[in-house]
């Protein structure tokens, strides 16, 4: 049984205009009583989100840039705590975000497979039989025993993808990870994702590729300024979304979306 439930979830970021304030500035501001150049801003990224996902569901999330899609995914993963509301999870989650981040530059490719694998919940016993297939799939060849700081960005993407998809998750969260590597690799990657998606019990994916979401998901959430605008069968919601993006009301930003669909 795998499920994800959000009840009236809000997420507010409190950010400074210039990143973090040094302690020095805080002290000076207190002493002089002036506000300083770096005011605190509240950014309401998710508002009143309620949704329930269960075994077997294939959820797609659409929305324009900055609608809160990736934020929602990271909140589902537990990386961002909700500012209000309740998040309930049943099952082991794995998130595929930022595939190229989080490599230890001094470690070899093989070392990094271990670090990432252990972080995703593997053990030495469970990782060992998968090791060679991860190495093969990444197509890194002899470089696998070289520190990853000498890798090209393409190699990093392939390695990251290969590790992240080698595990068997119950709940799979994917953020735009369908375009790793060159064309040949992409075809392989698509096959691998299909395999993985067959095994995962619950999938939530974010993509700008409308055609892909239409193929892979059965239910779609349309996010707009941090709110759920529509939640329903994939076909209906995507049709509405494409219509909206092509309409003058959206500022004509949807030309590309129309073509993709």
């Amino acid at each position: 049984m795998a499920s994800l439930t959000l009840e009236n979830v809000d997420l507010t970021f409190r950010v400074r205009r210039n990143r973090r304030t040094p302690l020095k500035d805080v002290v000076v501001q207190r002493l002089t009583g002036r506000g300083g150049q770096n005011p605190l801003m509240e950014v309401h990224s998710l508002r009143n989100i309620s949704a329930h996902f269960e075994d077997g569901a294939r959820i797609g999330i659409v929305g324009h840039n900055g609608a809160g899609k990736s934020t929602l995914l990271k909140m589902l993963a537990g990386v961002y705590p909700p500012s209000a509301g309740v998040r309930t999870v049943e099952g082991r989650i794995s998130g595929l975000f930022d595939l190229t981040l989080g490599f230890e530059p001094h470690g070899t490719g093989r070392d990094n497979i271990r670090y990432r694998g252990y972080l995703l919940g593997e053990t030495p016993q469970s990782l060992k039989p998968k090791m060679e297939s991860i190495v093969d799939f990444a197509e890194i060849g002899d470089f696998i025993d070289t520190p990853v700081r000498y890798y090209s960005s393409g190699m990093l993407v392939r390695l990251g993808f290969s590790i992240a998809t080698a595990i068997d998750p119950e709940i799979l969260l994917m953020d735009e990870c369908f375009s790793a590597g060159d064309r040949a690799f992409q075809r392989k990657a698509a096959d691998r994702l299909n395999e993985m998606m067959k095994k995962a019990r619950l999938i939530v994916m974010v993509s700008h590729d409308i055609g892909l979401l239409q193929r892979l998901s059965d239910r779609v959430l349309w996010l707009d300024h941090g709110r759920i605008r529509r939640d329903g069968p994939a076909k209906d919601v995507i049709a509405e979304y494409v219509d909206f993006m092509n309409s003058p009301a959206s500022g004509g930003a949807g030309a590309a979306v129309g073509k993709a669909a």
Partner: protein
Amino acid sequence: MLSYSANVWRFRYFWGSLVRMDIRTRYRGSWLGAGWSLLHPLAMSAAMCLVFHKLFGMSVEDYLPRLIAGMVFWQFLSTCAIAGCNCLTNGEAYLRQVPAPMAIYPLRTTLAAAFHLGIAFAVVLVGNAMINGVKDPASVLALFPMLPLLLLFGWSLAVLAGFAHAYFPDMHHLIEIGMQMLFYATPIIYTPEILRDRGMGWLLDINPLASLVEVVRLPLLGRGMPDPASYLTAGGLILITTSLAVLTLNRLERKVIFQL
């Protein structure tokens, strides 16, 4: 708290392998590497010993092991506090992807420093025994219960430094300066007697680190059991910093990601 520790343990392969890598990177896979990082406190101590020997007429056999023991002890604390500043920022890519307990990032810093401390202590223990012999062999045993406590202390410093640095980017400088000042306020390069003779004994009484260094150093050099009051002060200090670290994790663990 028990379930939190269990969660830290669940991720043991992750932080364990990172610690191993940190150690390997530091030592570059050779014992010569270990020698290099021991060389720093040894060279500092040798230079200082020479000065103090000439100025105050300290006996080298008595003073040098004491100095080195203090220096490696301090190196551990300052590594935990100063390198600890970056523990969360270094782990940022991980903590943005998986909600693992944040305690594991300071733990990584601390364990790598502790490994080094272990080697240094072994060198001091053997070296001192060879030069001076061990006056009170039973007291050496009192060192071992202190080691896990030292680990806890170092970890709590790393937690506090890591979170402080995540919230205030200039914390790094403050902590470096603070550690430098504490270094001179703690009887490491001088003996407690020098201060007491000059009417500055109060510095030892208000600085709990003076007790902590004493309860570690005396058994390490086999020079007798530390007095109970020192144990009490040192234990109190560790209890306070650990409580602060736990409190910090409890309050800020989920929120700190918005600061990174």
